């Protein structure tokens, strides 16, 4: 099932990538293809490799799996869908249907608004980490699959926004920072409380899982926010401060 999904994803992207590369190679750089492939591989590997078995025994391993599927993979895939690639990656018939249907367009536009993606991500993250739903996912494979898919999708929405080079880096930095902070309380709770998931009774295990989550989120969202902020701060200033140029020319 996972292999099939991975294959479909790779093929769809591959075709779109090739099409764009034929016309405008500059807009379809090689690293994007590698990034997408890496993202799909990471997601698939996290789900089929021995990590999956380990995840049954240890919350830390399970958290690691979620972080790979739900954060690292989406960010790699989102990075690969910059600019026109995002459109080309979607097969033409789907694209035609979507563009003709105002409902679908409105829906997508709504989802891709920052507050909405943030809200969706928070809801998905916190809901699946509540003991009731988390334990349910562990007992029912179908629910578990939905869990992984929704984590990936919600994270993908967030990362698409962070990676969107058309929008101001400052806004994207702030967004990445807010997402990072929004996830911290969850890690805090896992660190502070006694074991809350019936399948993982170890307190140290839960603490390690919490630390792993914090570290990974800082490493991805934190670094993204930092780099975007760095790119933003001096770019925004120059045109908006004519007073400074005026002062300098006065001094001369």
């Amino acid at each position: 099932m996972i292999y099939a999904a991975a294959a479909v994803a790779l093929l769809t992207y591959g075709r779109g990538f090739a099409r764009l590369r034929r016309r405008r190679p500059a807009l379809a750089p090689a690293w994007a293809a590698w990034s997408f492939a890496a993202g799909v591989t990471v997601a698939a590997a996290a789900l089929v490799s021995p990590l999956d078995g380990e995840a049954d025994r240890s919350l830390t391993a399970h958290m690691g799996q979620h972080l790979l599927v739900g954060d690292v993979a989406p960010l790699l895939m989102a990075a690969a869908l910059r600019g026109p690639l995002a459109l080309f990656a979607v097969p033409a018939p789907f694209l035609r249907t979507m563009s003709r249907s105002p409902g679908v367009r409105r829906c997508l536009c709504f989802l891709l608004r920052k507050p909405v993606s943030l809200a969706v991500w928070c809801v998905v993250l916190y809901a699946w980490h509540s003991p009731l739903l988390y334990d349910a996912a562990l007992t029912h494979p179908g629910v578990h699959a939905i869990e992984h898919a929704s984590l990936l999708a919600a994270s993908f929405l967030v990362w698409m926004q962070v990676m969107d080079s058309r929008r101001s880096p400052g806004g994207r930095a702030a967004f990445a920072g807010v997402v990072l902070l929004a996830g911290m309380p969850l890690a805090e709770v896992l660190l502070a409380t006694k074991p809350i998931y019936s399948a993982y009774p170890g307190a140290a295990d839960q603490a390690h899982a919490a630390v792993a989550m914090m570290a990974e989120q800082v490493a991805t969202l934190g670094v993204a926010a930092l780099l975007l902020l760095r790119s933003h701060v001096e770019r925004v200033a120059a045109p908006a401060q004519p007073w400074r140029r005026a002062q300098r020319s006065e001094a001369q």
Partner: protein
Amino acid sequence: MSAELEVSRRWAFRYLIASTAILGAAGTLGVLLRDSQADVGRIDPGWWYALMTAHGLGAFVGWAAFAVMGFSYWVLAQAGFPLRPWGRRLAALTWWLMVLGVAGVVVTTLGFKFGGSWVFLYPLSFHAAGQWGRWTSFFFSFSVLLVGLSIVTWCLAVLHTILGPALHAVSDRIPNRIGVALGFGYLSPTRFATNPRPVPYAVIPLTAIGIDMIIATLPLAVLLVEMMVQSLSPGVHVDPLLAKNVLWFFGHPVVYLLLFPAVAIYYTLIPRYAGRELVAGNIIAVGWAIAVTANVIVWAHHIYIDYPSGTPQAALNVTMEPLTFAITIVSALSLYSLFFTVYRSDFQWTAASTALYLGLVSWLIAGFSGLVNATIAFDQVIHNTLWIVGHFHQMALLGIGLAIIGATYAWLPDFVGRPLYSESLARWHVWLTFVFTMFNTAIWMYQGLLGGPRRFAVLPHRYDAAGQLAVPVTIVLAAAQLLFAFNIVQTLRGRRLTADSFGTARAISVGVAVLLAAAVGGWAAVGGTRTAKTTAPAAPTASPGKTVFTTKGCSACHTLANAGATGTVGPNLDEKKPSFATVVEFVTNGKGAMPPFKGQLSSAQIRDVASYVSQVAGTR
């Protein structure tokens, strides 16, 4: 001077005079405390702690906070934000509340022996061990409440001044104007637009602390009211862990009440002496955005070592380490900007600018020790040791203090319309203060790394040598402040040390040198003999029973003249004159509030102390 500036000038000047007077008193107390520890003018512990309480609040709030609060009005006026009518009223109210509050603290501590320390860690105020009464505790809490209220009214004055028309913000909405005042315009110029000029850098830290101190002080105000009620009605109480968190929720931002306005002074004066605008990238606004938020959510780094079982305090404490690290960012950015403003500039080195520069150096070094404190792994070792005392004296007395001193030398002439009495005297003062405070704090930090405890009226003997060394250092430091006072007084009187009285300047330098030599010589003579006394081999003339009595905690609660014990928690043994059997019984099995010591003392020890007490009770 324009009428608007005149109002700001007048109030900045009044705060300066009042706070400097308090410095004189609080500083003297500090010297007395340090010297008492070194056995030079030993003070009885009950009074030592009362002096310590007065010194802490007096120096920290009565001098440092009060002074920078006053300078803030002038900093704002210089930046184009003069005090308007309501600001003036609030400035006046703040002055009176602070003066009355500090006066109340002085009376309750130096007059009525309140010795709860400046943190009055709940519920210590209500367990005086016979040292102070409940009305004293009531009035102390009331006085601190007045001080807290003065901080709140100051915040209102500052925010009122900043958010007025001088801000030149395009929007009328308060949240947007607050964003502008916090420097968000440097990050998002269209959303936080100003016309025509952006907000001056010095305004940003003042806005930040104006907001933070209102948030931080209000819960403490509630706690203080509760403490006033509890002083008179002991049945009322609150959870001590909650009280501790509320205290530090205020206790951390109040440190920044000193730092942020000092930063505003640095942002204003350093560029002026460098002849250059502050060399700051827009990223500095990010530092302040982090700071204004983090300031009110890092309090638990003061209670890293408090984590009672079954409470979430430990998890809370862990969160606060990264947040505390985050708040250092604004200092790192500010120091980068300030040092680069000086770098390769035509910097005018006067007494004032030297003080400011040395203040930056001290801020940097105190920042390093602060980072150590912020790390739980290190705090485990240095918490409540003299390292902490070293750290905050470096930060408050130098990082902040030199900003105050620099601002005084820079602006006193403007305040009184006369030049400074003597530049060279001022330079002496600045350098002596810097060198000898660094020396003093280095001693503390070294003692602290060795495990030397803080808030000990009498330190364990192994720290004696270092404590002895501190005595001449503190005397010189105190003497140097006389130069400050003299310079201010002479300036106010319109005197001037002119060029042709070069002889007088030399005489002053010689006089200062002689004073220092006398201080050091005096210590060497007096301290030397004391050292000889304390390092003389402790002849085992004390009986075993007396040794048990004096080393196992009995002196803490009982009075026994022969042992030099003056404890008042338990019965006076000189009056009770217990028999041998009684002592054996009570010490072994306890009695009432006295716990049993049968686990801690061997039966031989119990017999020894019983024979000792029964023999010497009632004798000299």
